[in-house]
């Protein structure tokens, strides 16, 4: 399941009231789609009048909040080798910093590497969805334009 920040944004109060940490509704929606914040972090959304929106948002993000059983799958047929996943994955950037500047991954320490024209997951266990981090990261899936990455 993928969350489009625009869909979430349309359900927010859209007042940019600055009461949440991201300060704007668009930034809040992006963080919501990544699981970094929850609907309860937007005070105006908890006020009367937004009950329906609140319920829909909670339903949309519910799957994000459970990472007990998780995995990352890559469909090589769909992959173009664009390298978006290599550059956005926070693990890759930490273990091979040039990837954060857009450079190709050349070592064997990253989660993703483009081998022979397509992405390969070479260190799945480092993905931050797994213990000990258990984070709700799914940026690779969010920014894979060909839908080659699937996270559950």
């Amino acid at each position, binding site marked *: 399941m993928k969350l489009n920040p*625009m869909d979430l944004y349309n359900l927010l109060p859209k007042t940019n009231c600055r009461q949440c940490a991201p300060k704007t509704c668009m930034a809040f929606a992006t963080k919501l789609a990544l699981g970094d914040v929850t609907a309860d972090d937007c005070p105006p959304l908890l006020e009367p009048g937004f009950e329906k929106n609140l319920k829909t948002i909670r339903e949309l993000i519910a799957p994000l909040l459970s990472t007990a059983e998780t995995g990352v799958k890559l469909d090589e047929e769909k*992959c173009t*080798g*664009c390298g978006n996943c290599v550059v956005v994955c926070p693990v890759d950037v930490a273990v091979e910093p040039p990837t954060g500047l857009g450079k190709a991954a050349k070592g064997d320490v990253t989660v993703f590497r483009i081998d022979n*024209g397509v992405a390969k997951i070479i260190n799945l266990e480092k993905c931050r969805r797994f213990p000990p981090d258990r984070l709700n990261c799914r940026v690779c899936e969010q920014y894979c*334009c060909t839908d080659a990455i699937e996270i559950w």
Partner: protein
Amino acid sequence: MEDIVCNRCSLLCDDVLAEIGDEGAKSLGLCRLGHTHLESVANQTKIEVISREDGKENKLSLDKALEKAAEMLISAKHPLLYGWSRCTNETISEGLSLAKTLKAVFDSSASMGLSQSMSHNVQNMKLETDLDEVQNKGEFILYWGSNPVESSHRHASRFTVFPRGENVPQGVESRVIGVIDIRDTETMKMANHRIIIPHGGDSTLARALIDDLTGKTPIKTPILGIPAAILVGLSQALRKSDFTVIFYGTGLVNSGKTTENLSLLEELVQTLRKLGKNIYAMPMWHAPNDMGVVASSKELDGIPVAFNIASGKATQLSVKNTLQRLAAGEFDVVLVAGSDALVELPGQAARGLANSSIIYIGSTGTLVDNRAVLSLRAIDDIISGLGSMTRIDMKDIRLKNWDESKQKTQNVFYVISQLHQLIQTKLKN
């Protein structure tokens, strides 16, 4: 594995590794397009020549092939030298000299939009920023009529959307991305602002944005069927960004209103500059070295489009001229160098080309290679590693000499130079 430079698209990636062994080519960092290209040319160790007559194929020696090609070109009434978009800058220069020697027409896919853009005021034959600066500073990236996910796979990951940079420390989270296109493209998936316009709607949209930004006519009602709130959001994003780059492509330039659209793009850039913003327009073309064609031909006579050197002096041709003349079958002999012209040309021109006598010099396996009366299959430049090409931001990138390059110097440049020398000798005698 060794450092190489990929020559398959206009990004000329130089941060990639490859090796060629018994099991074929291996690479790290090359996208699917780049790797497929490397694989397809990896095992060629020397020039192969095929001649075709009455449906029969024969192998020829290089010397015989050069002799035949020279005779065909010298005796041609209306020779055309076409292609060049996959060649090195050195090959393009040699091709231009050959066109002078033969008094031939020289043209390339660059004249299907890129040359027009570069010679328009919006660019004035120069770019004011480059992709490295965009990586470091690009705050609002707007793809207009261009679709990097389909054509230049690593554009977003290497330079424009995802990498972190000096002023964009969080990469994509520090940037705002917009896409304007006539359909829902894969590139839209990474965008905050997604604008789908009807075909030919670019000028109306550009005018509406300019008038909103200047305050002349604030956007209050839907335009082109797009809700006002969405357009106001785009306009505000432009107003807010301190470093905007509009990557415009064939969708904007070749939608039937080339000059009008380019002029409006220029006006939009100027409008935002008057508001104190850094904003740049950069063309987004996919062919590996169309920008090299533009740069080399500019040096020749300051004329960036097609040439007719028949009079001994380069005179400008409009793109229609070459395409129409191809379609009408006016060129009796066409030398296609370093391009798959049968794929790149529009239908009727491609049909016209297919019916002329083609001499092909380039990598193996293209459509035009299979159609030519004479095919000189040279070592691809990714293997020979010699010469330089011009990245889409006008930065010259030198190809890398690697293990596979050793002694594999018989590339397109080599063949064209040999052919040119032979033609010069024959013409003297």
